[in-house]
């Protein structure tokens, strides 16, 4: 699939130099910046923002890891160092509102930065997409998903971590698709296996990997598309699909990619 990206993404520095201010800062996150697959999610979301005419900017090279993986792994020093540096940058640009496509960045910025002096309105990209759908700015015109069986895998740090269950489903509900829930969903959702810094280490000894257990739920649902809304879930779910050699049958897509697709943006 060739991916055509022709949007000029402004940075905060550029905006400031031009004497402008964005409505919202798009916090891309490390996965969204560097991971090849997650970059496509980032691009899809940037296209959505541009399409609906939201004035946004990114930090670009001034963005730094939020410190989430360090914190979950017990390195509170490193986390707070990252947090304080990021807060300095964000406050320097007088950022008020942040949107991010990563539930880990979302959770950390929203819940853990305020005590360290960083107070912003932080939303997850699925919440913004839900809002845009409600405002009629995003539609479901493309027929790509018509009649397809689609399921959604809840990310822990969006769902249980912050009680956001409906926003990601909003983008799927307007599709002309056959929406199915996994047997473990919402508050009972099963982790993909990447959280708590597991993404950056080998799993402990066990019977199987957690993402395999999760993909078994997907196989049982007979879904053809697994929607995710976290770049780490994306990696884990794709690996799980590969494990069962189901790449031809099961597609893993982020909510932003699905929205971009049905709005003719990809």
């Amino acid at each position, binding site marked *: 699939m060739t991916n055509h990206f022709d949007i000029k993404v402004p940075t905060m520095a550029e905006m400031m130099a031009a004497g402008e201010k964005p409505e919202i800062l798009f916090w891309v996150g490390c996965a969204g910046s560097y991971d090849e697959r997650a970059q496509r999610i980032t691009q899809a979301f940037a296209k959505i923002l541009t399409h609906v005419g939201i004035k946004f900017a990114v930090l670009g090279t001034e963005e730094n890891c939020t410190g989430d993986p360090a914190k979950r792994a017990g390195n509170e020093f490193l986390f*707070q160092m990252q947090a304080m540096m990021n807060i300095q940058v964000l406050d320097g640009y007088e950022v008020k509102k942040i949107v991010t496509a990563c539930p880990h960045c979302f959770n950390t910025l929203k819940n853990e930065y305020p005590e360290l002096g960083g107070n912003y309105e932080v939303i997850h990209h699925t919440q913004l997409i839900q809002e845009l759908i409600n405002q009629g700015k995003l539609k479901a015109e493309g027929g790509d998903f018509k009649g397809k069986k689609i399921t959604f895998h809840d990310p822990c740090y969006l769902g249980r971590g912050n009680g956001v269950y409906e926003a990601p489903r909003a983008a799927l509900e307007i599709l002309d698709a056959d929406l199915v829930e996994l047997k473990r969903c919402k508050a009972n959702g099963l982790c993909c296996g990447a959280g708590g810094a597991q993404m950056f280490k*080998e799993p402990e000894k066990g019977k199987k*990997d957690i993402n395999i257990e999760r993909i078994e739920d997907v196989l049982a649902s007979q879904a053809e598309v697994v929607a995710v809304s976290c770049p780490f879930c994306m990696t884990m779910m794709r690996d799980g699909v590969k494990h069962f050699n189901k790449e031809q049958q099961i597609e893993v897509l982020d909510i932003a990619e699905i929205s971009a697709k049905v709005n003719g943006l990809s």
Partner: protein
Amino acid sequence: MITQIIFFLIFAIAVVLFTIQVKKISQNIKLGRDINRSDHPTERWKVMAKVALGQTKMVRRPIAGIMHIFVYLGFIIINIEVLEIIIDGLFGTHRIFSFLGGFYNFLIGAFEILALLVLIGVIVFMARRLILRLKRFSGVEMTAWPKADALYILIIEVLLMTAFLTMNAADYKLQLAGFGHYIHAGSFPVSHFLTGLLPNQPEKLELIERACWWFHIIGILAFLNYLPYSKHFHIILAFPNTWYSNLNNKGKFTNMSSVTNEVKAMLDPSFTPPAADAVGRFGAKDVQDLNWVQLMNAYTCTECGRCTSVCPANQTGKLLSPRKIMMDTRDRLEEVGKNKAKNGKDYEDGKSLLDDYISREEIWACTTCNACTDACPVNIDPLSIILDLRRYAVMEESNVTGSLNAMFSNVENNGAPWKYSPTDRLNWAKTE
């Protein structure tokens, strides 16, 4: 008169012994670090009313939840009857509340129905453990004692309820015979079915009635004194435990203020950290490094295993079991408490929660997904203990696997957990 004195002595000894045990537990809990969990009292009362009193998280699993509500309601409401028994015992009266008339009949009738529901609930619970052998009730941490503990509780409840109903049946039969002081009082919707099983001689009936009465009340007092040694202590601690539970979004982990001071001092050399904030170590190696709410959590845990049954690590065969984290914390805390009582306040036995009870392999298997904290019917938080143990391993010992160390140094040097150049961060936005 002599029976009244005996009753008073038994009752007083039971209360004193129970108070001593509760005090020991309270002292152990106070070994934990301080944490402020008294904010937002209104919200806290609401959480307690919903979760502990209202059992809202119990009924997420309907069969166990409804059976538990039977036993819970029975336990609480039948205690009104225990009040009557205590007054009767102390003053040598019989059915002192019977002056309430119709309302008394209603109460006794309600107690009987509840007692039957308790029996049904308890028998279902036994069947789940002994016949159906639900997976949730086994596991490495479910050794002989925890399994026996669960059965003792259920057996005691069967005995207490049976004694209560038999006592009523005998009483009712004596009432019908117009024997002695057995006045017409109460209604017996359940126990009147048992009257046929009892002898007809009033003397024998009186003996049965008295025996059951004594068995019932001594049984309850003995059970009370069993609680502090048992997982069943949850019937008391569930209430404070939910009141003091974490009100924040589950995704929010605490920011360590001791670290904040050091980080501030590093970033700004002119910053002087407040001196009063002297902390022992970063994170937790042993139970005293945990806060008192975490320690109370350990005493509240009734080992139901809902946490472990939803843990992704446990389900995929890893060693981690959130229930074990709580049970280990309690066991270690008991050990530390006993050591201090025996050998003085500053005694160190050279053991610790981390390594001697909870292994590194367990703490590193956690995905911090919060399934365990969400599943717990009384808002216990095993995840916070796992995180504190990790914090100790990382910040005090620098004892982590190479890949995590690599992640740390990447975050520190490249601003990302992977080894990419910060200058490439915007590459995704390159137009083709």
